[in-house]
């Protein structure tokens, strides 16, 4: 597999009146062509800011990418001029957002909004763009595509709007699609439709996807690889089967234990992660998860844990991951 994207030591801070918010605090990862990488974490862990930084969609000020490299097809996106990055956005790298209600312009027709990118990036004329727009809407499963092109966003339901967003995202055949919580605002049955659609499109088109979510259920069904983030840092990364079967970081383990499963008994008590996520302005020294961690030792609050590669594909940032696994196998594991 060839590497499509490589992120090295990315740091994005927000300089606010209360202080410096360390939203993304040194993250590095790679993405291969055609791969689906899921980034999981709770609100405020920096998962959205992390990917927005890739295509420089961070409001500046107060935000600033203070360090790092983002190599996409061999070029550093962070060093590009504004014109150059504009050529990449929406063209080579497309993005779809969480809220399909607010990410479409309410006073323009769906057709106009899809055709705009086609005319801008691919230099199509109106006729060609219209034809392609119809194709795209059909591809994402919108019935009566030709007629619906002249409809406005309010005439579409939430699920349909997300389909339109996906059609727009795919319009220029991107190499990378960034999906920021694309199903969070949708109902479960509609979520299943969208997940199914993305799986199908991925097979057909073969683009790489970064899928951001807090829903570990969706990730299990769609991802190849998973990155778990906490307080602006990557705490664990593994191939999807490996992560669910052998979580190494206490936070990943805690997340898996705190969600009820449809296929699990009614009487098993959920084990919540106690406490609250830290304030990113005033990060304590050491591991950011330490205050909530049941494996905490003195060292955790003093020194930041290094990232250990358990296998070449599984890395974890925890001083005590070996103890975590030992306990796991003692208790028969998370599940087999």
């Amino acid at each position, binding site marked *: 597999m060839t590497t499509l994207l490589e992120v090295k030591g990315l740091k994005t801070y927000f300089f606010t009146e209360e202080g410096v918010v360390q939203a993304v605090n040194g993250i590095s990862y790679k993405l291969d062509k055609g791969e689906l990488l899921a980034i999981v974490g*709770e*609100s405020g862990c920096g998962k959205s800011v992390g990917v927005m930084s890739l295509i420089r969609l961070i409001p500046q000020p107060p935000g600033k990418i203070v360090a790092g490299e983002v190599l996409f097809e061999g070029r550093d996106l962070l060093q590009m001029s504004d014109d150059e990055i504009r050529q990449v956005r929406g063209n080579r790298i497309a993005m779809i957002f969480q809220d399909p209600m607010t990410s479409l312009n309410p006073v323009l027709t769906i057709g106009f909004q899809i055709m705009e990118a086609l005319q801008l990036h691919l230099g199509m004329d109106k006729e060609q763009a219209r034809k392609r727009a119809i194709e795209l809407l059909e591809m994402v499963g919108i019935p009566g595509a030709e007629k619906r092109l002249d409809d406005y966003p309010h005439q579409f*339901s939430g*699920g*349909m709007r997300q389909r339109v967003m996906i059609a727009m995202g795919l319009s220029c055949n991107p190499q990378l699609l960034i999906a920021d919580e694309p199903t969070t605002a949708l*109902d*479960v*049955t*509609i*979520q*299943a*439709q969208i*997940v*199914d659609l993305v799986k199908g499109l991925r097979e057909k088109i073969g683009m790489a996807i970064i899928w951001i979510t*807090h*829903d*570990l*259920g*969706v*990730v*299990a*069904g769609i*991802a190849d690889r998973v990155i778990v983030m906490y307080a602006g840092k990557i705490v664990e990364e593994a191939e*999807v*089967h490996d992560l*669910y*079967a052998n979580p190494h970081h206490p936070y990943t383990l*805690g*997340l*898996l234990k*705190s*969600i*009820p*499963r*449809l*296929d699990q008994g*009614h009487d098993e*008590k*959920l*084990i*919540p*992660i*106690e406490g*609250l*996520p830290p304030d990113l302005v005033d990060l304590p020294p050491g591991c950011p998860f330490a205050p909530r961690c049941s494996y905490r030792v003195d060292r955790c609050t003093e020194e930041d844990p290094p990232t250990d590669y358990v296998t070449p594909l599984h890395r974890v940032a925890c001083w005590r991951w070996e103890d975590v696994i030992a306990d796991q196998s003692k208790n028969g594991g998370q*599940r087999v």
Partner: protein
Amino acid sequence: MSENSKNNVLLEVNDLKMYFPVTKGILIQRKVADVKAVDGVSFTIKRGETLGLVGESGCGKSTTGRAILQLYKPTGGSVKFEGEELTTMKGERLRQQRRRMQMIFQDPYASLNPRMTVGNIIGEPLEVHNIAKGKEKRERVQELLRVVGLNPYFVNRYPHEFSGGQRQRIGVARALALNPDFIVCDEPISALDVSIQAQIVNMLKDLQIEFGLTYLFIAHDLSMVRYISDRIAVMYLGKIVELTDYDTLYENPQHPYTQALLSAVPIPDPYIEEKRTRIILEGDVPSPINPPSGCNFRTRCPRVMDICAEVDPEWKNIGADDQEHWVACHLY
């Protein structure tokens, strides 16, 4: 069910209807249609149990909760609380009954007044109902804070100083202030982060045992509902399509909508996800202004028959022996 189960019923809802008028015209408003948000739902809740009410957005589950508490004036049907009709109750008597029925809201940011201190928020119901004042009130508020796992010294703080999970705890403390019997939990955890959701749900479960509470737990997250509920009702477009205990609903769902809904819920296990086959429903939920004729699920139902368009399916118990398994579908 045991013999005296009839006496154990705390809440009885019968053919409850809640329509909202759609009007046209600027000066003279004419009613042109109704949004049939809740269109004839019936169920009972026993003392001390949790009834889960699930469904997708817009299916009328929150409206049902509010109509039960008489926060809306229901269009039709009856709501009996300990055998006493609530829909016709007025004035002081209704106010007295309201003490015993409380609500926890979905959005912990919008449901707390930002200009009131936590002490005043939790203490307000005590004053409104003339239960406690002054020092007594303050002590009661501090006790309530302790009960929901917050520091009693927080009484003078304002809502913005708390996180989402902590605010939800304040909302719970407010609901508990009057020692209610019945609490409508309207999506109390959907606005919270996963790691916090479990904290709140566990707390609700503990409080239920401690204070003998009865819950109507409204949510769209089926796995969480299954975890907390004794029985579960599934709603679709203003109607309940299936109602049974949590195990039966999951092991043996009968209504095609319940089956599709359950199959759409992702399970956090990649090995299981690979093997699962999903029932993917076509299209979207129809408008409640003009619901389909007959069974209102027929437009999306994978097992639709001719009769479904003509006759509204009957609400019947198909459970074997003394087991309750209510379903509204022509297949049964």
